[in-house]
């Protein structure tokens, strides 16, 4: 049975109901000209009273499985709790009501915040220059690869047509390289989860434009040969791109600029609070070496000579804009507030606690759920949904059952090199009590699987709709409401 199922708003409609009372007509009625009238029935707009509409949307909003209601250990997403202080700052009228065309003179507070954030991010990561333009991580990646391309071409080097990407990479890495027009070459991982140095050396050639590396990588492991990897890539004339998605493990501990990375994006909307933009936009600010700084997208912010104050400027060989106006400015305010409110020591504590929490989960679960590579992990651990006592169980069943226990499932089936992967990232904002409750749930699920696998196959049982048919949804997506199509599907027993 379905708990609290909420039908689409179209199905709550009845002819003649309306939400607002308009005043009596005090002029003669006049019809619209025929050529302005639509022949259809106004796209079947639903007719409801105002309280019905309010209740419908309020009920839907209460179904949201979010960081504000449940533990959300989505691997590689850093779903940390978002301090309300950051929201307060972002809503200050001087920031929230600023107009992007009001000019530098009237935007000095906003410019100062952007300048200081550029400086802080550079300091935290060991880079010489920062641009706050990109809208989110994937756009930061594209920025980096376009900057690399501009740099190589500017040197008169037209032969570099390949970008190397590890087999454990986020899917955005090869997608970025392909979008920038490069051929993607995959590099294997070794048994300890590091980049396979021999395979890397085989694939580095005069055609290599760049190597894209995530550190810690998507197995949640620190890349043990990172300095050597960077040296090899540089010797081959290539550049090293840092995917900053997992930067939450390194704050105040290691600086990517000093490890040999030439360029990196920061997911301000993960590492620096407001996970996944709090449902809103992200920010994929980027940092790089002095050599690459002239190619960064503008506008950036600098101090004005002499009188003081701040101004926008565009670097001399800039690849151009990546985003209208000044990036997703509200996210910059939140990140600035985060950095200033916890300070340098607080940032280091963030990473230490994030790593400790992930290792605590790994230690509590690995005797039941095999760990992909048995090493001390960083900010996340990759386990496998392979249970010795219940060989037929799949990771998908475990993930669905976790919902019944009141937890958002971790990332599943990623990284692709780990069969039945369960990728768990607890972040630093969770208490031991929450971590224990989550581990207890996963251990209880393993026992259920051994006792009666059907309990897992039936999950989730506490949600408004039960296990959805993901295959059919992918093969035959229905992207808009159609009463006849819905009625037919209902008759077939399709839920949703």
């Amino acid at each position, binding site marked *: 049975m379905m708990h609290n199922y909420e039908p689409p708003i179209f199905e709550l409609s009845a002819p003649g109901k309306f939400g607002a009372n308009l005043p009596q007509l005090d002029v003669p009625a006049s019809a619209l000209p025929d050529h302005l009238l639509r022949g259809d029935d106004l796209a079947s707009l639903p007719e409801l009273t105002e309280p019905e509409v309010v209740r419908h949307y309020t009920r839907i909003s209460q179904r949201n499985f979010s960081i504000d209601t449940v533990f959300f250990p989505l691997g590689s997403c850093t779903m940390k709790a978002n301090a309300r202080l950051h929201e307060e700052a972002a809503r200050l009228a001087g920031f929230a009501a600023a107009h992007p065309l009001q000019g530098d003179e009237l935007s000095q507070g906003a410019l100062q915040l952007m300048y200081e954030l550029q400086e802080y991010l550079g300091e935290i990561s060991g880079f010489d220059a920062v641009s706050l333009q990109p809208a989110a991580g994937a756009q930061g990646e594209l920025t980096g690869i376009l900057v690399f391309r501009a740099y190589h071409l500017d040197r008169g080097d037209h032969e570099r047509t390949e970008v190397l990407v590890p087999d454990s990479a986020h*899917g955005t890495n090869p997608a970025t390289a392909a979008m920038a027009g490069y051929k993607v070459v995959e590099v294997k991982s070794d048994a300890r989860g590091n980049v396979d140095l021999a395979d890397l050396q085989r694939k580095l050639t005069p055609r290599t434009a760049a190597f894209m590396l995530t550190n810690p990588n998507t197995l949640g492991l620190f890349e043990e040969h990172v300095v050597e990897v960077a040296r090899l890539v540089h010797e081959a004339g290539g550049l090293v791109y840092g995917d900053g998605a997992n930067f939450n493990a390194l704050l105040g501990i290691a600086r990517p600029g000093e490890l040999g990375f030439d360029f990196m994006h920061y997911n301000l909307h993960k590492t620096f609070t407001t996970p996944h933009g709090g449902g809103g936009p992200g920010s994929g600010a980027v940092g790089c070496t002095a050599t690459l700084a002239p190619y960064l997208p503008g506008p950036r912010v600098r101090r004005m000579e002499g009188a003081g104050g701040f101004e926008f400027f565009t670097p001399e060989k800039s690849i151009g804009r990546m985003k209208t106006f000044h990036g997703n400015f509200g996210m910059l305010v939140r990140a600035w507030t985060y950095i200033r409110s916890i300070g340098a020591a607080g940032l280091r504590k963030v990473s230490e606690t994030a790593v400790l929490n992930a290792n605590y989960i790994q230690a509590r679960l690995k005797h039941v759920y095999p760990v992909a590579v048995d090493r001390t992990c960083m900010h996340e651990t990759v386990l496998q949904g392979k249970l010795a006592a219940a060989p037929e169980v799949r990771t998908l069943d475990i993930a669905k059952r976790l919902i019944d226990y009141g937890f958002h499932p971790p990332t599943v*089936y990623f990284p*692709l090199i780990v*069969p039945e992967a369960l990728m768990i990232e607890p972040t630093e904002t969770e208490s031991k009590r929450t971590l224990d409750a989550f581990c207890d749930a996963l251990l209880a699920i393993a026992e259920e699987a051994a006792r009666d696998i059907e309990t897992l196959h039936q999950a989730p049982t506490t949600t408004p709709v039960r296990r959805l048919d*993901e*295959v059919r949804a*992918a*093969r035959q997506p229905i992207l808009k409401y159609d009463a006849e199509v819905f009625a037919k599907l209902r008759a077939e027993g399709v839920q949703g």
Partner: protein
Amino acid sequence: MAFNTPVELQYSKSHEWIRIEGDEGTVGITDYAQDALGDVVYVDLPQVGARFDAEAVFGVVESVKAASDLYLPVAGEILAVNEALANNPELINNDPYGAGWLVKIKVAPGIGALMSADAYAAYVETLKH
């Protein structure tokens, strides 16, 4: 579980099979590959007439779990693609060596090293643990 590996086919390490008849070859993915991918929901195939080197990426197969590149076991030119897969990608799961074929190619001379059915079955064994 034992996977089907027909003896008349040749196999690649990236889990494609090829049936060579004269200078023409038919290519698909193996039973092991379709099982590992899970339910296939989308297939991206090349244009007829496109030419590829051996082991070059010629398409993409997408399941609910993952998107994977397709590698051509031998160099060749695309003669035909399986149009039926556009609306019925599940053919790859249901009949990987038959109705689920991907492309037909004109095989370039000088075929590289491919595995026999026995060698491939032994290779798949090493991947299971």
